[in-house]
């Protein structure tokens, strides 16, 4: 926070290669600080900088993934985009409309267009409501009258997500985890939203069920032209589902780009370390690849390191990393990175010589 990111204030529109009109959602300088209060007067003594200046766009029809470890601010970002939280700074423009500081009442009509899928299919469904009531709730809340009434509309939705429409009167506890997640998806789809923010949509599910739900989300995107923002910590799932990936570290986006570019030529050292840490299900290849081990833990967002936040754990860090915050700059087409000494730099790019960390063979 000592220096303002320069690229972001200059021309947020040109950065992704998408023009300002083409984006379904645009976040600029987005911030969320949670105050920590103390004493009788509840004086603010500090703030958790959960999200600290994000710039990105979401294009219609794409899947943008936010990845990072716990505490990087990805869930807070999702809640800001759906306006379940009030941003402390910055702007969110959805479909040409500034929704940054809309009141709950003003947001309500927009809830038809922005919906959320939650991680835990157990706590996100009311156990005392039938599936019919749960999936039909959006119609009632938004006072939308489907053509043939709510019940046929709900049954159609259940069929769409691969559930038996006759289960209309059952309760959530009668369903397995994967089926409950489908119920949540059906509810999300009820009003045909334009944007769906999915926060860890499959992380609570078993592998075989996870694959069913991933395929379902992909099919629905194709059929209904949905736009997804997927929040996930599982890099394998993200590689499978997304079109573009934003890697977050301590409330900042450190790398943002087309999926293949990020996965095959990651430029931020954090992304490189993150990718190398994922266990590969292939015992033969485990000896071949180079693994980078980050030491220590993620610093506290209460008091993040100055300038580049990754410098405390980065093997390439030099003096400039402690004093000047690197801007999120486009180094390859459609691929931005916030680093003074990127890995895999494109040809011609001047970078200081870093050294590799201790690598396991």
């Amino acid at each position, binding site marked *: 926070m000592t220096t303002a990111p320069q690229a972001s204030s200059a021309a947020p529109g040109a950065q992704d290669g998408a023009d300002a009109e083409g984006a379904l959602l645009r976040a600029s300088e987005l911030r969320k600080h949670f105050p920590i209060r103390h004493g009788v007067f509840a004086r603010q003594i500090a703030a958790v900088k959960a999200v600290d200046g994000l710039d990105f766009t979401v294009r219609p029809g794409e899947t943008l993934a936010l990845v990072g470890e716990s505490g990087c601010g990805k869930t807070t970002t999702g809640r800001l985009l759906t306006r379940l939280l009030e941003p402390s700074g910055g702007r969110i423009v959805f479909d040409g409309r500034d929704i940054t500081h809309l009141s709950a009442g003003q947001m309500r009509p927009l809830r038809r267009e922005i919906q959320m899928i939650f991680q835990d299919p157990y706590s996100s469904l009311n156990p005392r409501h039938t599936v019919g009531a749960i999936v039909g709730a959006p119609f009632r809340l938004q006072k939308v009258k489907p053509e043939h009434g709510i019940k046929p509309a709900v049954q159609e939705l259940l069929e769409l997500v691969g559930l038996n429409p006759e289960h209309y009167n059952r309760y959530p506890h009668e369903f397995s985890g994967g089926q409950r997640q489908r119920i949540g998806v059906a509810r999300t789809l009820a009003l045909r939203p334009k944007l769906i923010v999915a926060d860890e949509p499959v992380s609570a599910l078993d*592998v075989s*069920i996870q694959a069913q739900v991933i395929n379902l989300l992909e099919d629905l995107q194709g059929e209904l032209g949905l736009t997804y923002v997927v929040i996930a*910590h599982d890099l394998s799932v993200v*590689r499978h589902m997304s079109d573009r990936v934003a890697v977050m570290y301590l409330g900042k986006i450190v790398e943002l780009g087309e*999926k293949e570019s990020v996965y095959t030529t990651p430029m931020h050292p954090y992304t490189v370390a993150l990718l190398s*840490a*994922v266990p590969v299900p292939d015992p033969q290849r485990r000896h071949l690849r180079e693994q980078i081990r980050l030491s*220590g833990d993620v610093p506290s967002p209460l008091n993040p390191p100055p300038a580049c936040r990754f410098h405390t754990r980065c093997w390439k860090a030099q003096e400039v990393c402690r004093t000047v915050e690197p801007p999120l700059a486009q180094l390859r087409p459609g691929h931005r990175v916030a680093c003074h000494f990127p890995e895999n730099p494109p040809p011609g790019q001047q970078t200081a010589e870093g050294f590799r960390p201790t690598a396991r063979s």
Partner: protein
Amino acid sequence: MSTHREGQPRLAGPAVDAATVVGPPPSTFLEVRDLRVHFPTADGMVKAVDGLSFRLERGRTLGIVGESGSGKSVTSLSIMGLHDSANVRLAGEIWLDGEDLLGLTPERVRALRGKKMAMIFQDPLSAMHPLYTVGQQVIEAYRIHNDVSRSVARKHAIEMLSRVGIPQPASRVDDYPHQFSGGMRQRAMIAMALSCDPDLLIADEPTTALDVTVQAQILDLIRDLQSEFNSAVIIITHDLGVVAELAEDILVMYAGRGAEYAAAENIFRRPEHPYTWGLLGSMPRLDRAGGQRLIPIPGTPPSLIHVPPGCAFHPRCPYEELTEGAARTDVPQMLESMPGHRVACHLPTSTRRRIWQDEVAPRIAGEGQEVS
């Protein structure tokens, strides 16, 4: 030892009696024979583990893989003797270094726990006592098995904490668990589990609650400590990537039974059980470009109260008709299809190999080029 066992209630039945009279203590370090763990409930008998057998030698790592409800955690709790004896029906044998754990008194099992066998749990926050310092808990574990003074035990605890990579162990030893981060707590629990150099270490989802960079550190740690102490390690996980990193042998479990057991390499290169194929096909892979569709296993895992008759996987198995009805009526035995590779499937070995090579491997692209 077939007649009366103290401490552990037994399951009656001819199959069990036949199993219990089987032979003398095995030469293997750990051998589980026909283990059955059933829980009576108001809705019926939950058959969490139903006839599981496997072996493990010192210095080897066995990965047990399966989805929720496959019985992998229940198996590990049975080995550790941690089931509440009032609510469980246990049968079979668990031989650890010449002793049948299921036949021992609770006192004897307690003496073995910690020294002979130790366990790392998934959630370190619930496995540690919040009101005692980390040091006190490691010291207690050490002093139970070693007649040493408090200060010697404390020195040992500090050494263990530094061994598992906790910075400034001499001061962190007096911290409470809540003052540690998730990864550090996991390390502290590993320090506690390893404080008495156990011969058998069971790690139940040791990294599931952790971030990927911390997971990598913990997996390295388990690997290094194992080679140092030459212990036998069982790693229980749902993540095929984690077992591929650590395990030499893999046991795939489904609905409380073993489905396939083989060297790790063969589980990934030439798997023979349709359920293993399903797991491999439904897993998104980091080392593959996205775009190709996942191949999920249809349906959901069965209820353990109403386990499907015959092969428990048959309602979800795409090749079930090829068994001509056998899969619906007979429980398949774990049979050796080649040395060291055992599969519980009614399909003939040649058919399985053909299906893998011609149908499944090409779909799980990248896999199977080296199928023999």
